[in-house]
């Protein structure tokens, strides 16, 4: 990981030196163990802050719709897919973005590690090959990275950036065998009542902090429907009727756009399984329109276009 960090710094310095970009968006060391944090670098002297490790879990594409600058962005496979989506939705231009692509073997879910430690606190976490060495009070444990990946990483089929301006490190082997929709299918196989109960249980945890929405690169609406007061589409409470509407509408709004980067899932402080809905949307779009978001700059998003032979069996006549 050190080599990757050094390579990111080198390319960052070069791009800034040659004035090809104004800003590098990458990661720096976080303030607590198992965390990295987004980092904005505008001068070569700051470039040595940039790092790469298994805690670079945020999707930095989130910051693109905001910026007017020419940006170089450090991007994993899923982040690149988000960038493609944002380019297609005219939130940023391809020319404006220099993609520092990084093949990714998955990011670590610190909450899974914390759950395993049963209250013992990690004071230091050191990445070593395929393991992480955790130390703390009465704690010294070596864990395998692959056992603690984020759920979205475990089913990822696009670990390598599909487009990039520079690729750092060697491409990694894509997981061809994984059934990424296994959990969705299991959910679908349940009875109506079971599905509603488990969905209700999940969204009942919601505290309406909107971390899921705000971490999502595709939630860039100037005014989100939940914020509208005239008309006020939904109530502001944490009653199930309000939280359910929020999560259902959000899932629908990112159908055909969501690349399953898992940002919403990672951002949620309450541990809601947000991918249950978004992954279902993704699967449906794939089944109905043979479309996978964020793979190509050329194909048209299915919900932004019309074809006479679009499937319409689901329509009520």
């Amino acid at each position, binding site marked *: 990981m050190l080599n990757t960090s050094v390579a990111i710094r080198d390319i960052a310095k070069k791009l800034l030196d040659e004035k090809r970009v104004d800003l590098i968006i990458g990661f720096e060391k976080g303030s607590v163990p198992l965390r990295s944090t*987004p980092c904005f670098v505008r001068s070569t002297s700051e470039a040595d802050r940039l790092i790469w490790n298994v805690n670079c879990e945020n999707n930095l594409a*989130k910051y693109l719709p905001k910026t007017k600058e020419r940006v170089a962005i450090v991007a994993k496979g899923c982040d690149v897919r988000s960038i493609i989506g944002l380019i297609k939705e005219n939130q940023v231009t391809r020319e404006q973005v220099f993609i520092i692509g990084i093949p990714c073997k998955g990011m670590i879910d610190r909450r899974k590690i914390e759950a395993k430690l049963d209250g013992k*606190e990690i004071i230091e976490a050191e990445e070593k090959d395929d393991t992480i060495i955790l130390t703390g009070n009465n704690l010294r444990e070596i864990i395998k990275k692959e056992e603690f990946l984020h759920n979205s990483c475990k089913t990822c089929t696009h670990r390598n950036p599909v487009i990039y301006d520079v690729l750092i490190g060697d491409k990694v082997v894509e997981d061809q065998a994984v059934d990424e929709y296994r959990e969705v299918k299991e959910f679908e196989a349940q009875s109506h009542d079971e599905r509603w109960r488990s969905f209700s249980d999940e969204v009942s945890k919601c505290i309406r902090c*909107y971390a899921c*929405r*705000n*971490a999502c690169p595709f939630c860039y609406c100037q005014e989100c429907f939940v914020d509208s007061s005239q008309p006020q589409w939904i109530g*502001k409470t944490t009653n199930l009727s309000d939280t359910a509407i929020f999560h259902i509408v959000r899932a629908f709004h990112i159908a055909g756009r969501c690349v399953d980067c898992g940002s919403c899932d990672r951002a949620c402080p309450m541990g809601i399984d947000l991918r249950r809905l978004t992954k279902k949307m993704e699967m449906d779009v794939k089944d109905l329109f043979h479309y996978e978001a964020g793979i190509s700059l050329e194909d048209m998003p299915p919900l932004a276009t019309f074809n006479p032979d679009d499937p319409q069996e689901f329509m009520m006549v």
Partner: protein
Amino acid sequence: MKELEIAKTEVVSLLNTLIKEYKVFAPVGQNGFITFQEIHSGSEAFLDYINSKKPPKEIFFPQSERLFSYDLSKGEGWSVEEPASEKKQRIIFGIRPCDARSLVLLDNVFDGQLYKDPYYSGKRKNTTIIAIGCNQPSSTCFCTSLGGGPFSQDGSDLILVDIGQKYIVQVVTEKGKKLAKKHNEFKEAEDNSLSLMRDTIETAEALIKSKIEVQKVTEKLDSMFDDPFWDLVSEKCLGCAVCTYLCPTCYCFDITDEVTGQRGERVRTWDSCAFPNFTLQASGVNPRPSSKERLRQRIMHKFNYFVANHGMAACVGCGRCIKECPVNLDIQVVLNSILNR
């Protein structure tokens, strides 16, 4: 009053007794984390924990609360109904000292000299607070910088110190004394237990390494409103409400009407300075148009305006915002950066 003690094995039976008379809230494990909930059996309380995910402030200031309901459907005139006030006495058992202290801060707002919020102060008045000090503060804790500490007594009626097989009970208020006297699980503390208690407290305090000179932060902020610092520090902020909703001292709220036909409820819900609508004016102007102004407000409010209004910072150093921020925007880092400006 001299310290008391209670054997750990007696705690469940104490809680079971208390439940008969009081509505008892305690830390409970649910969905993989701790929240404060009403318990119906002493064994539901999970006391060997670091801190709850959500702060117990919601026991006094719920995330959504019906202020009153109204009905215009009855032809002539209209009726308004207020929620029945809670008659049953309540106990929070096992709250952490930082969260107990947060109630003292919130009292300034909801139960102060100028204004008394009946919803909050009613609940506050009928609640007894029994805290458990922190033998093992988390690395994100910085309560001692804010005038608190792992065994701070502020806001508690009784505070328990875990010395292994038993808790030493410090009696802080009359309310606490009354409660302790009523229950024979509380016994007079033995002398050797007291020295153990002092060691425990000392060890725990030494574990909190972070020391931020908050008073200097307050002074610095006086002249930092227009500092370009806010552009830089807010750049990664996502504008969600994780930090404010999980904060034991954030108290901003919104009021909306939930209307169905001729009937409706007026509801108070938590609001957050991180949200765009927080300061959106009817004219369409928003004086805090971006995350820069919003984050500045959060820091200014906690460490400057609140100090000016109430003589204390609106932060207890519980570290929840540090643990849960989706982008690791760490308030301690922000405060230290302010000091280094």
